[in-house]
């Protein structure tokens, strides 16, 4: 599997061909549309990350030591960014997610979308993805010890 940071760099490179912002958004809309809708059982308040502007749903499983993310948003551009995050973090070990910095968002000029004041749920989602990784890592370590 491609290196974690290589994927991030690929995303940055992909976006660098767009000169116009609206082209970038068009691409994010495409990505958002292509991301399979979340399993309805996870599109519930329990898995809701409430931004006051848009909603994000997130669920993660650990299968054979790798995280499988299931995510969605009610806003399509946000969902496009969600798709990128899932593309990057899906099927990764908790360690991979926790050891590497997330730089692609900044690299494609979407940093503002992860600011706490934007309240679109994305920043909280990234935190939650890392939390899942931490929780599963802790669980794995526990299992090893016992």
């Amino acid at each position: 599997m491609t290196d974690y940071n290589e994927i991030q760099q690929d995303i940055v490179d992909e976006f660098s061909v767009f000169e116009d912002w609206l082209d970038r958004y068009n691409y994010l809309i495409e990505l958002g549309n292509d991301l399979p809708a979340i399993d309805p059982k996870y599109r519930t308040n329990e898995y809701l990350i409430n931004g006051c502007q848009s909603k994000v749903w997130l669920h993660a499983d650990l299968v054979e030591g790798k995280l499988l993310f299931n995510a969605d948003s009610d806003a399509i551009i946000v969902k496009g960014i969600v798709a990128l995050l899932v593309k990057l973090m899906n099927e990764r070990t908790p360690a991979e997610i926790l050891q590497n910095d997330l730089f692609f968002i900044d690299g494609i000029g979407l940093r503002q979308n992860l600011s706490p004041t934007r309240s679109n749920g994305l920043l909280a989602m990234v935190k939650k993805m890392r939390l899942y990784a931490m929780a599963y890592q802790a669980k794995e370590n526990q299992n090893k010890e016992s």
Partner: protein
Amino acid sequence: MGLNIKQIRSDFPILHQQVYNKPLIYLDNGATTQKPQVVIDTVRELQETRNSSIHRGVHYLSDQMTDRYEAARETVRAFLNAASTNEIIFTSGATGSINAVAFSFGEKFVTAGDEIVISEMEHHSNIVPWQMLCDRKGASIKVIPFYDNGELILEKLDDLLTDRTRIVALTHASNSMGTINPVKEVIKKAHAKGIPVLLDGAQMVQHGEVDVRELDCDFYIFSSHKIFGPTGSGVLYGKESILEELPPYQGGGDMVDQVTFERTSYNTLPFKFEAGTTNYTGAIGLAAALDYLQSIGFEAIGRYEQELTGYTLEKLGGIDGLKIYGTAANRISVFSFLMQNIHPYDAGMILDKMGIAVRTGTHCTQPVMDHFGIDGTIRASLVFYNTMEEVDALIEGIQRTIQMLS
């Protein structure tokens, strides 16, 4: 005489810039308005050559600043046609003003079992301070509902005004739907039962003349930054007879007469409500903004904004699948809308990249969103420096947004 929009726009330096290589189209005036050069110059002049704490100094600069500050109070008095400068309190903003009344009035007049009447279309800042008061006192809130077009259901008011109602707090104009409320009728009904009325003028004062004596409201509040003045400043008007009775809501310097460790006697109006070093720069900047508006003329501004409103409604109405939330006949140039199946946040993000600044979300009026069963809207809020061409650009932007998202 019509407005010379070109001239007016040249008075606002911030409007002449590009964002994302597109000319800025600023349609978020409901959130905050831009400042004319004269306000910017006034604030800078004060900082550069006049800064000194007011009301205390024995020296030249302090005298000068105190005079300017009290002259600003007179400008605000004249603007609202209040009877006396004793009725004009400078605060930190509309929110600060409402909190002040909710606290002081509440301390004096509200007890367990009492009721506060507000409306379904209030901004959170005209809901939460009253809820906090109710929690402190064991009082409760009663709500005047509105019709789907955004007009208040006035008939309901008669039942809501009881012998337990202590105050009616109502927005003069809705920040999310644009409705101008029939405040004179509300005041008449309330006064007939001896109930005072607070009007939230945060969204009204920048759109038309307000005469507190003609309205006969008991409190009127607004923010400086929404009427082309500096941020962090606002006004609380209160009838002198009521303000006299209210206890201060903050203690500190300047609001006192005599202080000993045993007891303190308070200063007279309006100083009793202005504890500590006030935002004198903001107040004087606000006065500069009011003078500027006066020089243009509220009548001309009102007429032009009506034209702008008619034009915007017509153009928005021509877009397939676009729904306007708030279609009251009497309205300000604030428009909330949604396009079929399009999330307002997506639309806002795309419009932003076209250089168009709108607001998306609940606009701090979650009960209004609940009324319509929606999560939020896109809001374009216009003032007299906006143009028909900007409305055209908005319409084009909306159409492009629809294309991209459907």
